[in-house]
C-alpha cells in the first residue's frame, strides 16, 4: 500500500514537472514561444553598408534574426523566402529582418547587400569577426561550423536554421523553425507587432 502511495506521489511530481515545462516559452504562439527561455537582443556587428550596427538601431520595431551565409545552397534561401512571405502576409508596417552571415571570410558587406536586396528591402545584412559571431550565436544557444574546403576552395557551413523573433523592446518572443508554416509565422508576427 505504501509503495502504491509512493508511486502515486512520484507520478504526480513528474506530471507537475511536465506541466511546468510545457508552459515554458509563453502560451498562444502558433510557432515556438521562447519568452523567458532566451535572452534579449544584443549585438554589435558591421552592416551591409559597412557601418556598425547594434540592437539600438533596430529598437522600436520587432526584429527577426537569422544566422546564415550567402553561399548556402538550400536552408538560407528557403528561410529568407519564407520570412519575406510571412512579413508580407503579416502586413506589419515596422518590422526588421537581420540576416547575420556566419561566413565573414566570403561574405563582405557588398555581397551581403546584393543578397539581402534580392529577398526584401526589409532585410538588413550584417556580419563580424568569427569571434564576435561566436559570442552572439552562443548567446542564442546557436552555433556554426565549417567543413574542409574542396579543390575549388568551396566549403559547407553548418548553422542554425531558426529565425529568432524579438519584440520592439528587444525581448525574445518566438522561434520560427523550418517546420513552421508561413501562415503561423505571419500570425505570430502580427501578434508580436501588436503587443
Amino acid at each position, binding site marked *: 500500500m505504501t*509503495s502504491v502511495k*509512493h*508511486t502515486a*506521489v*512520484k507520478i504526480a511530481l*513528474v506530471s507537475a*514537472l*511536465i506541466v511546468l*515545462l*510545457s508552459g*515554458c*516559452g509563453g502560451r498562444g504562439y502558433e510557432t*515556438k514561444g*521562447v519568452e*523567458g*527561455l*532566451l535572452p534579449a537582443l544584443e549585438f554589435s556587428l558591421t552592416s551591409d553598408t559597412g557601418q556598425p550596427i547594434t540592437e539600438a538601431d533596430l529598437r522600436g520595431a520587432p526584429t527577426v534574426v537569422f*544566422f546564415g551565409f550567402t553561399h548556402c545552397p538550400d536552408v538560407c534561401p528557403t528561410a529568407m523566402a519564407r520570412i519575406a512571405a510571412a512579413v508580407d502576409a503579416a502586413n506589419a508596417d515596422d518590422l526588421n529582418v537581420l540576416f547575420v552571415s556566419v561566413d565573414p571570410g566570403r561574405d563582405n558587406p557588398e555581397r551581403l547587400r546584393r543578397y539581402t536586396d534580392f529577398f526584401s528591402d526589409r532585410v538588413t545584412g550584417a556580419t563580424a569577426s568569427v569571434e564576435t559571431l561566436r559570442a552572439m*550565436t552562443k548567446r542564442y*544557444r*546557436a*552555433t*556554426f*561550423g*565549417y*567543413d574542409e574546403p574542396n579543390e575549388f576552395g568551396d566549403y*559547407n*557551413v*553548418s*548553422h*542554425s*536554421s*531558426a529565425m529568432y523573433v524579438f519584440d520592439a523592446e528587444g525581448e525574445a518572443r518566438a*522561434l520560427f*523553425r*523550418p*517546420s513552421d508554416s508561413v501562415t503561423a509565422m505571419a500570425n505570430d508576427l502580427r501578434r508580436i507587432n501588436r503587443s
Partner: protein
Amino acid sequence: MTPIIEWLRPWEPSAPVFIACVLAIGLYASGLMRGARPGFWPALSYLLGVGLIYAVTQTHYDYFSQYLFAAHRLQHLALHHLGPFLIALSMPAAVLAAGLPQSVRHWPQQPALAPLFTALRVGYRIIQQPFIAGFLFVGLIYFWLTPAIHFDAMLSIDLYWFMNWTMALDGLLFWWLIFERGDRGITPRLTPGQRILMLALIMPPQIALGAYITLSKQNLFEIYDVCGRAFPIAPLLDQQIGGLITWIPASMMSVVAAVIILAFRLEQSNDKR
C-alpha cells in the same frame, strides 16, 4: 592558445558544478589526510567518477554536447551512468565523513537542525525505495528525451543545467542503492537478488528507447537543426549514433553492475568460510 588549454576551458562555465566537483575532491583528499584508508582502487574509482562528471560539463566537450545529439547522449551516459557508477562503487561515505570538519559532523544532532535532517532522511529513504529509484532512473531518461521537453532544455541555459543536475544526482542515488555495502547507513539494504532484479528491470525500457531512436527514419530532435550542429553531419546519422549510445553502453552498465554484485557476494561467502 594551445589546443589543450582550449579544450580544458569550459564552454559554459558553471559555478555550482565547479564548486561541487572541487568540494567532492577536496573533502575526499581531506578524509585521506585524516587517516581514512579506502584502498587504491576505490580511491581511483572515485576520482575517475568525479573527473568524468567534470570533464563532460566543464571542458570544451560541453560545446559538442550542446550541438550534437550523439555527444549529448555520451555526456548523459557519463553523468547518469558511468560517473555516478564509479563514485558509488568506491563507497566514499566513510572517507567523505572523515574529511568533514568536526563541527559539521555534529549538525544532525543539533536541536535547531535535527528536524531538517530527519525530513531529509525520510525523503531520502522514500526515493531510495527500489521501485521508485528504478522508475526515476528510467523515467528521467525518457522525460528529458521527450522531443518537446528536450527542445526547451537545450534552448534555455537554465533548463540545460537543471537537466544535467537531475541526471547526475539521480545517477548517484541509483548506483548508491545498487552498490551500498559495509556498515549500515540510512540507505535501504537490498539483497543481491533484489539488486540484480532492479538492474534487469531497467534494461528493457532503455533498450526500447535506444532502438526506437536509432531505427527511426524521422528526425526526432529538431533542436539540433534549429540551433546548428557543431560540424556538418547528416541529422539522421547524428541521431543514429546517439540512439546507439542510449541503447547499448547504457544497458551494458546493468550487466557490468550485476557481475560486480555477484563478485561481492562471492567474496562475502569466501570470507565467511
